[in-house]
């Protein structure tokens, strides 16, 4: 042990000499300020190590002296080591332990996320016609949309969306647009119960009420929400199973849902939040495939369908078995956002003797994500049989076609300005034609 102690002292002196020689023989010009600082830091660390070695050496000597019965020399109080009664390794362990405890405590504090963030979207704008009600002109308030996604247990999920919107009559209304509570069975299957966006096509479940999410100023007219003129049930109150298992290099996206059959109340589709009087159900589904590799990467192709018994509040009430089916294609990449949807209707009159009526609706939208903005073009068309009670009973159940050119500028990560020029031609109930210039300022928060 004595030899070891002497060696320690010897190695201390040797290291000091070695460092001195190295530094002394190095041309000072070769060392920049950064290296000089590093050398200074190394010297400090070496000094600290030497002091620790000195303290250890002294302690070894003391122990050896105790073993041999010789009197113990007083320990030199040299620097930090001498100032502490605990051996250096013990102190280091204690410091590490304290640091770990602090980290754990800090992480625990961070995990205590008792608050729930509130996020949302809002938009305002101006136009030669109101984007929802062409009879109005000037400035308009769009949506103020809040949504909550509370963190639940391992498999629980919830989504609540409250939207304050100005309807086509100019009145402000508040809607609980979505109120769905789910259970995630697996990565590929989530079961939702409540009020959700009916899964058909792409737009209805991808763009929702947040205008900022949408590259265009508005959804296609026939796919608007019910109180904004939409003629397809945008919301369903019921049960929804959804998922997207990996199949090959892509994903198979599936949806199956059942819920209360909607009713047309005063010309507007109502999703019957509290149930309907006859207990009829809407049943539907969607199946799509998303390509994740190769030339088709970003392309989704799918089909969708639903069937429902939908009546109105006329006296006597009309009842129609609505059967809608069709397909959709989306090409969503870094550069492109192209969307096409088609809806065919084979609606059977259950309350009269007018038989089955065939109608169709669809749109194509092409958008290019340039570095400076997103220009887009859209064409939409509906041909709705006016002898079909389902369309005849709806205020906006008329046929039309619309062409639109638009542009989106992202002012920042959370704000966008959109411009659109559109021309709309009504084709059955009236032959009105009007052109629009629209501006929208949309944000997320």
């Amino acid at each position, binding site marked *: 042990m004595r030899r070891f102690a002497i060696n320690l002292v010897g190695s201390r002196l040797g290291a000091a000499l070695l460092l001195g020689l190295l530094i002394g*023989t190095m041309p000072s010009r070769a060392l920049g300020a950064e290296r000089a600082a590093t050398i200074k830091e190394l010297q400090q660390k070496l000094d600290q190590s030497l002091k620790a070695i000195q303290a250890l050496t002294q302690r070894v000597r003391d122990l050896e002296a105790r073993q041999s019965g010789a009197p113990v020399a007083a320990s030199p109080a040299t620097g930090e080591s001498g100032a502490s009664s605990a051996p250096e390794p013990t102190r280091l362990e204690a410091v590490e332990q304290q640091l770990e405890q602090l980290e754990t405590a800090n992480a625990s504090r961070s995990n205590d996320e008792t608050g729930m963030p509130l996020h949302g979207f809002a938009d305002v704008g101006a136009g030669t016609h109101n984007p929802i009600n062409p009879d109005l002109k000037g400035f308009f308030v769009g949506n103020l949309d809040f949504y909550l*996604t509370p963190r639940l247990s391992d498999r629980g*999920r919830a989504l609540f969306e409250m939207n304050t919107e100005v309807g086509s009559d100019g009145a402000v209304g508040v809607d609980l647009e979505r109120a769905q509570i789910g259970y995630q069975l697996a990565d590929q299957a989530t079961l939702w119960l409540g009020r959700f966006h009916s899964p058909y096509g792409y737009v209805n479940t991808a763009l929702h009420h947040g205008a900022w999410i949408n590259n265009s100023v508005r959804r296609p007219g026939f796919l608007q929400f019910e109180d904004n003129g939409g003629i397809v049930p945008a919301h369903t109150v019921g049960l929804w199973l959804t998922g997207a298992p990996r199949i090959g290099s892509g994903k198979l996206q599936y949806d199956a849902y059942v819920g209360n059959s909607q009713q047309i109340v005063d010309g507007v589709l109502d999703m019957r939040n509290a149930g309907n009087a006859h207990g009829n159900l809407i049943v539907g589904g969607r199946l799509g495939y998303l390509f994740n590799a190769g030339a088709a990467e970003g392309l989704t192709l799918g089909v969708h369908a639903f069937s429902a018994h939908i009546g109105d509040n006329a006296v006597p009430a009309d009842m129609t078995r609505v059967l809608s089916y069709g397909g959709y294609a989306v090409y969503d990449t870094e550069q492109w956002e192209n969307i096409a949807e088609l809806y065919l209707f084979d609606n059977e009159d259950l309350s009269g003797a007018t038989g089955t009526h065939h109608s169709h609706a669809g749109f194509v939208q092409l958008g290019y994500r340039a570095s400076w903005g997103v220009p887009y073009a859209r064409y939409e068309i509906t041909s709705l049989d006016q002898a079909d009670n389902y369309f005849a009973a709806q205020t906006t159940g008329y046929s039309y076609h619309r062409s639109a050119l638009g542009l989106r500028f992202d002012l920042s990560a959370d704000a966008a300005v959109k411009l659109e020029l559109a021309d709309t031609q009504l084709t059955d109930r009236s032959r009105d034609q009007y052109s629009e210039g629209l501006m929208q300022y949309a944000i997320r928060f």
Partner: protein
Amino acid sequence: MNWLLGAVLAALSLPAAASDVYVVCNPGVSLQAGDMLEIFVGEKSFAGSARLAPADNSAAQAAFLEKVMKLDARKYATLWTKKSFRDGANPPPVRATDAEAIAYVRQTPGGCSYVLRAPAAGVIVVAKY
């Protein structure tokens, strides 16, 4: 001997640790490096029956997004805005430092995060980029 000191100094001054990203997980889960992208965009929530709990580390996020996710911070945020609004999913919580990220992963079953320095015991390194 100059070359030796030069080499030591060069090694000390190189930002070697800053250029590497270590993806770490709680030892209770078994994951592959290829799973990370789906985990951090909310597409994969389970490893077997274990619920995954990813956490972002703001100190290492830029490097992680560039090397692993191939995204910038703006696209990553937009992606989560849409995901959350559409699916009711929540983005990963954010930790401020490597130390916080490691502590979170250590004590969170299913926890995963990423750090810039090789972690000590208590977590498993799923991948190094």
